[in-house]
């Protein structure tokens, strides 16, 4: 039995949890989420570098919530989303258990937000180089080139909303695209409808996105969606010095203000 499985087994044996959400190997040679509701299935629980899905997305799923007390296997991005969700008052300290996987792949059980905060500080990783390079490339383009780049990318969008579904922070019970009085975002997949959707999604995640990159991985047509939120987070860091997913008492930068905020762009 692996260390991870031991921790999980202990949680079941104590009766601390009713459902554990972790990773297992799937039929197609990849890994996927596994929902374990009794200790008999624990031997299927694994963790390796292929386990990328941000499992915190299940925290808000009604059918998962029904099980009762939950435990999640989470790596760094997952833990950041825990703190971000916590800062938005969607999860309270002690609502769930987190089996954190550190950068060397070792599991440890974290129970309160302080432990998670410390863990994140000690396990910081750099964002993937590919993403940074692409961001730099786009920022170095002329405005016309950038527009061309993004309209080309957005034109591929088929509006399957997988980017929204896999995001642990897209938990609104009614998304702006689902509102039709007025129809903010056109339902068809058209250049304007797609542009509206991606701008709205990015803005609604500005200063909240913890950068797990799941939206980009889920996108069937490979739109580099994470760039939009990453770039927004960059400007938020520059303007306000805030970074989401680091503290449970984080204040959403767009819901408060400072008197001395920059206003040189305002006439």
């Amino acid at each position: 039995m692996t260390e991870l499985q031991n921790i999980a087994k202990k949680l079941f044996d104590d009766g601390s949890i009713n459902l554990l959400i972790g990773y297992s190997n799937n039929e197609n040679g990849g890994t996927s989420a596994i929902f374990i509701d009794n200790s008999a299935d624990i031997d299927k629980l694994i963790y390796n570098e292929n386990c990328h899905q941000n499992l915190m997305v299940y925290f808000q799923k009604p059918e998962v919530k029904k099980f009762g007390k939950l435990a999640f296997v989470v790596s760094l991005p997952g833990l950041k989303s825990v703190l971000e969700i916590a800062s938005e008052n969607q999860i309270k300290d002690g609502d769930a258990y987190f089996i954190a996987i550190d950068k060397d792949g070792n599991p440890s059980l974290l129970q309160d937000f302080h432990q998670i905060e410390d863990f994140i500080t000690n396990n910081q990783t750099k964002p993937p180089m590919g993403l940074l390079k692409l961001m730099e490339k786009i920022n170095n383009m002329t405005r016309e080139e950038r527009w061309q780049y993004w309209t080309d990318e957005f034109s591929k969008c088929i509006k399957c909303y997988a980017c929204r579904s896999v995001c642990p922070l897209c938990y609104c019970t009614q998304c702006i695209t689902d509102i039709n009085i007025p129809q903010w975002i056109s339902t068809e997949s058209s250049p304007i409808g797609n542009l509206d959707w991606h701008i709205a999604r990015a803005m609604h995640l500005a200063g909240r996105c913890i950068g797990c990159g799941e939206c980009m991985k889920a996108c069937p047509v490979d739109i580099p969606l994470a760039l939009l939120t990453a770039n927004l987070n960059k400007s938020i860091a520059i303007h306000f010095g805030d970074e989401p997913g680091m503290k449970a008492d984080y204040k959403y930068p767009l819901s408060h203000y400072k008197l001395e905020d920059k206003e040189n762009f305002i006439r």
Partner: protein
Amino acid sequence: MSEFEPKIVAFVCNWCTYAGADLAGTSRIKYAQNVRIVRFPCTGRIDFMLLLKAFEEGADGIIVSGCHPADCHYTSGNYHARRRWMVFKDLLDFIGIDSRRIVFSWVSAAEGAKWAHLVNDTVSEIRNLGPMKEYKNLENVSSNKIGELIND
């Protein structure tokens, strides 16, 4: 061909800029007639989606204006708006929409002349930028031509 006349939509707050624009009117200050004013309770209410809709509906430029800092009727709406615009402007830049097409300003109820200047300046700037062709080139209604049926 006639000269390009920019269409400007102004999103203004009820308490300061709208009153300021009103003052410009009652003071008989002449300013460019390209602007359509939409009145909001507060700049804090002006959602970015509204700005996008204005572009979609054919605006070439947008003015967003409200109370000066510390003057907000609701104490802090303009401070919140200021932050949101800062971030939204950066996003537009990143996507390649010319953020010069959106002009942010504080115009108080006493600043009729400032309002007139703001509109005139904006109109001449947008006139120089030309029509918002980026949005106009995005054909909204899908076409049934085969070949375009495949999303590409």
